[in-house]
């Protein structure tokens, strides 16, 4: 043991590791084993049943592929919508307005700090097909054709959920991209200006490339959140109508309430492995950013 290790003893890290291993790692790792059993809440007997749970999950008769598909649609949809709107708002606050920037920033980020459950309940009222203010407003300006049954039509519901989630999350993306924009040296724009680049060209050839690392980071963080999405779906549609908005995490909760622990653990394990892979890349990315500082 050298002087450095004596000065920074490892036991300082033990409480954090103990908490984390007990409540995070042990359940996840034992889950890998229980995924191969017929564990239920009704019986004390747990039998090994091989790959049966996984066969059921991936069989075309089961709806799991639909749930996985919904989760992926939600993930891709929210990433695209939040990123596009987030870039737009960040550029607007960086260049379009000179004053009140922090005021706008605080308001636009506001939905991100509200409880997701509360946001979902409010939007259940706003998106109500007959009495909601969204359709009320659309009818008032003559856009009757756009006054849709947002959360009730199985073809639209998932996109409504994507819309509400993006409303809540866009501020986060904007705040981070705005900070990224503020690090771009002004000279780059001046040089581009002298070379005769117009506003669009300056955005396309200076802003976007300089912002790309920040966009990648927010997109993967968004993916981590979206692959596990639960609250917003549960409280807006509870997976319905039918199974139109059921995601992996809402299905896991259903398995839990029905006592189907073995099957639920198998689904959890699949999600765990997906996120382990995505998470590995995220951490590499965040770490590279820190090292560069």
């Amino acid at each position, binding site marked *: 043991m050298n002087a450095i290790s004596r000065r920074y003893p*490892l036991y300082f890290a033990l409480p954090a590791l103990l908490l984390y291993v007990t409540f995070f790692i042990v359940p996840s790792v034992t889950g890998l084993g229980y995924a191969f059993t017929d564990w239920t809440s009704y019986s004390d007997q747990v039998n090994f049943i091989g790959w049966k749970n996984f066969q059921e999950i991936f069989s075309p008769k089961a709806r799991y592929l639909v749930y996985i598909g919904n989760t992926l649609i939600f993930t891709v949809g929210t990433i695209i919508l939040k990123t596009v709107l987030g870039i737009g708002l960040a550029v607007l606050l960086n260049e379009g307005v000179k004053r009140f920037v922090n005021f*706008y920033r605080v308001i636009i980020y506001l939905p991100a700090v509200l409880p997701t459950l509360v946001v979902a309940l409010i939007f259940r009222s706003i998106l109500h097909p007959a009495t909601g203010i969204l359709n009320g407003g659309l009818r008032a300006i003559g856009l009757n054709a756009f006054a849709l049954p947002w959360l009730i039509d199985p073809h639209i519901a998932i996109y409504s959920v994507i819309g509400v989630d993006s409303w809540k999350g866009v501020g986060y993306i904007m705040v981070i991209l705005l900070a990224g924009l503020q690090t771009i040296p002004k000279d780059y724009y001046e040089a581009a200006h002298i070379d005769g680049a117009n506003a669009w060209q300056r955005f396309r050839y200076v802003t976007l490339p300089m912002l790309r690392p920040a966009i990648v980071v927010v997109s993967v963080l968004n993916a981590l959140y979206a692959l596990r999405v639960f609250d917003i779906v549960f409280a807006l549609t509870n997976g319905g109508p039918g199974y139109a908005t059921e995601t992996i995490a809402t299905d896991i909760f259903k398995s839990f309430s029905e006592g189907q622990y073995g099957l639920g653990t198998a689904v959890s394990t699949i999600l765990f492995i997906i996120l382990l892979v995505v*998470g590995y890349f995220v951490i590499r990315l965040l770490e590279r950013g820190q090292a560069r500082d």
Partner: protein
Amino acid sequence: MTGKTRLRASGGHLIAIFASLVMFVPVYLIAVNALKSKGEAAAMGVELPTDLNWDNFLTVIDQGKLTTSFLNSMIYATGSTVVATFVAALAAFVLSRNRTKMNRFLYFFLIMGIALPINFFTLTTMMQVSHLINTRQGMIALYAAMQTPFSVFLIYGFIETIPRELDEAAIIDGCGPLQLFFRVILPLLKPVLVTSALLSFLGVWNDFLLPLYYLNSSSYWPMTLAVYNFFGQYQQSWNLVSADIVLTILPVLVIYLAGQRFILGGLTGGAVKG
């Protein structure tokens, strides 16, 4: 200022104000409808209430048993935030200062928790074995474990900015590791500890998932779960649901507005470095 740039600036403000309105309207809706009568609030409209029905708040506090839930939320959020921020600062300090191969691995291992999902099934067993299921202590422990990885990540990045010469000087003055940490490092970590604590407090206050899985008894419910169940019972009374929501988000709004500098600054510090 030429006419053209002035026009552009006001165009910019126009879009920014529109965006701010879109973000603010739902909060406004909740605030005005919380004061309406049941009939008036049925459509959750934007109109101001004709009479101010302040007694809506008394009704929901009484019917929704909100005093207990408010205290529960406070206990969970405060308890787990204190634990998580403290253990994270301790861990981040040694892992950041002494970068052996093993410490690098432990750091990655810890912050993988930002990405990983919880296995609720096996965690149930874990909670039963440790007698923490359906208890307040259990909730605090679970939330502390959930918040630790991100707090470690935030604090680890900040510790890099504190010069090592301070450590050297403290050691020469005769500080042991504990004194070095508590007397020298911890006071310097204040800004990042505030950020980490605020984000963690809001995260726990807003959470709905853990109580949904692990709290059967309504006397342990936090505000979010209480609101959800209240909504189930009183779906037709949007004025009461709104009043309940106002009470749930009031602490969030106060903390956010008072601590926005730390919250927004902390986010960009943590994630924009790429």
